[in-house]
């Protein structure tokens, strides 16, 4: 598949934005500026990026507890995200959601989700709305290897299959559900094999290769837009950080981590782009500097933002008729 240079650069920039954003969030969490639980996406950037590269603004995604990468790739605003992580009223959710619930319905982002496996039925429903409207929209459900053992995964994929909905289920297999390795949580080696149970296509992709993800997602999204039904894509990847910030990671070896870091999706893609002549060292530095500045700006925005007013506690529970 030949990819336009501007798409390649968008993907490079997006992956790097996710990385720098997440690194900063990790730093801020460590010094107590970000309250609550934080699950970082570092190492998995190629998945969200390669998939969202195909999405329109009016396409839907459902995300997970490890959702910052999906949001950024779908067009989320760094300032509003950071302010939400800080619990400020300028944040995406006015400080009521936090890391695990960031959403932007106007961008089709139907929420990160604190419940593992919460997303598949919701994505099926968004895909139903898309099909009903008939405007060629799709719904992408991001989920983890752990979520693929939940009943909601089976129910969501089955419904999407039986109703031939324009849904794409993207399993980010980072090999661990918190501490439990995939080999101890299921007998299949490839979660994509589960697609056979629904009579839909299932692909295994190197989730640390953004081009491989882009190509598989492109085919799945083409099928969905053409009314050919859902697809299951398993992206094999790895989270470089713990399940959450503060995780002692006693369940995996440093050797394994090093092996995966050698397959880091960002340097890999950068090397490829340099080789192709799409990117130069100077341009790479310029992009990085710009992203660092954007992330710093997001932090300044968040820090300067007010806390929610206490009366806001009681607002937004119900939609009040106009």
């Amino acid at each position, binding site marked *: 598949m030949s990819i336009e240079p501007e798409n390649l650069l968008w993907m490079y920039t997006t992956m790097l934005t996710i990385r720098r954003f997440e690194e900063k969030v990790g730093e801020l969490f460590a010094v107590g500026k970000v309250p609550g639980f934080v699950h970082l996406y570092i190492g998995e950037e190629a998945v969200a990026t390669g998939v969202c590269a195909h999405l329109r603004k009016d396409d839907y995604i459902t995300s997970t507890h490890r959702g910052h990468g999906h949001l950024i790739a779908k067009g989320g605003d760094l300032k509003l995200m950071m302010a939400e992580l800080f619990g400020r009223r300028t944040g995406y959710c006015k400080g*009521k*959601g936090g890391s695990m619930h960031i959403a932007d*319905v106007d961008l089709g982002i139907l*929420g990160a989700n604190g419940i593992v496996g919460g997303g598949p039925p919701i994505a099926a429903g968004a895909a139903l709305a898309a099909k009903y409207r008939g405007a060629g929209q799709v719904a992408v459900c991001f989920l983890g290897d752990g979520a693929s053992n939940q009943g909601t995964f089976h129910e969501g994929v*089955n419904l999407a299959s039986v109703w031939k909905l324009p849904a794409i289920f993207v399993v980010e297999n980072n090999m661990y559900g918190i501490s439990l390795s995939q080999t101890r949580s299921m007998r299949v080696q490839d979660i994509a094999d589960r697609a056979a149970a629904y009579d839909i296509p299932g692909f295994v992709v190197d989730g640390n290769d953004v081009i491989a993800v882009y190509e598989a997602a492109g085919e799945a999204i083409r099928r969905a837009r053409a009314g050919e039904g859902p697809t299951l894509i398993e992206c094999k990847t790895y989270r470089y950080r713990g399940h959450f910030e503060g995780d002692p990671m006693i369940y995996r070896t440093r050797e394994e981590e090093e092996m995966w870091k050698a397959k880091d999706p960002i340097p890999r893609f950068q090397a490829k782009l340099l080789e192709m002549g799409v990117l130069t060292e100077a341009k790479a530095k310029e992009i990085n500097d710009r992203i660092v500045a954007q992330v710093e700006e997001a932090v300044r925005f968040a820090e300067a933002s007010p806390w929610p007013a206490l009366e806001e506690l009681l607002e937004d529970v119900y939609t009040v*008729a106009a």
Partner: protein
Amino acid sequence: MRTLTFAQALNEALKQEMRRDPTIYVAGEDVGVYGGIFGVTAGLLQEFGEDRVRDTPITESAIIGSAVGAAAGGLRPVAELMFIDFIGVALDQLYNQAAKMKYMFGGKARLPIVLRTTCGAGMCAAAQHSQSLEAWFMHIPGLKVVVPSTPYDAKGLLITAIRDDNPVVFIEHKMLYGMEGEVPEEPYTIPFGQADIKREGSDVTVVATMAMVHKALTAAEELAKEGISVEVVDPRTLTPLDVETIVNSVKKTRRLVVVHEAVKQGGAGGEIVASVVEEAFDYLDAPPKRVAAPFTPVPFSPVLEQAFIPSVEKIVAAVKEVVA
């Protein structure tokens, strides 16, 4: 005025609303070809087609979850949970997803979802098909809980539910489906949070829900023969709860009995009594009483089941106690 059964009134509400708004669709187990196991969705498939009347697999999480996604995507789903007892396999999609999304998202989500379901004992359907679990949903901010007792209320409240932009749990007592009552032909709405005084009285307030409204009315009839005047108040919705009407009634009668079919412990009655005590303690001439099911699963045998369901006799006895 013409009469309809409770099930026919619901059916008419669905049809009239679906004709009005093409974004409304119905989905659930056996709602299409079969017309619903209690006949509530009969004829919908023939009139509105498969896109809008969707038979689902037996997949309660996906029935509710897909309603959440579809509502977020601009549709107005009316999902059916065949029996309220089945919520256990699907509760996450309702209470963690549907109910909380608007708040978690800082107010930006709009989720016009109706989850229709059946509750109640009386058909020997035993412990997993007969429960009254309305109190579970009352405990969840973000949900509205509707508990109609008559065909008239059923139609008006269902139309209101469909037009509401929030997740609404609409609970239909299965023993009421065959009940007949006057129902206007034209569409009409009944506001949520507006209790209905089903019978006026002066000696005691009996707050009752769903099937218990009719037992309370029968009890009131009997008590009237003995000179005891009973006011029967039907809240019609539990969230929002019309505390004001209940409290005003108690201020008049100075006595309160609450009747529901759900087990007493942790039931809606506790909430209603507590609200009245908080707001009208000084008006009470006797301790409030609750008439409700015992703290057991719903038994199968008709003999045991009838002993489980609050009876007219028990309501009469409770009223006599509070007026003594």
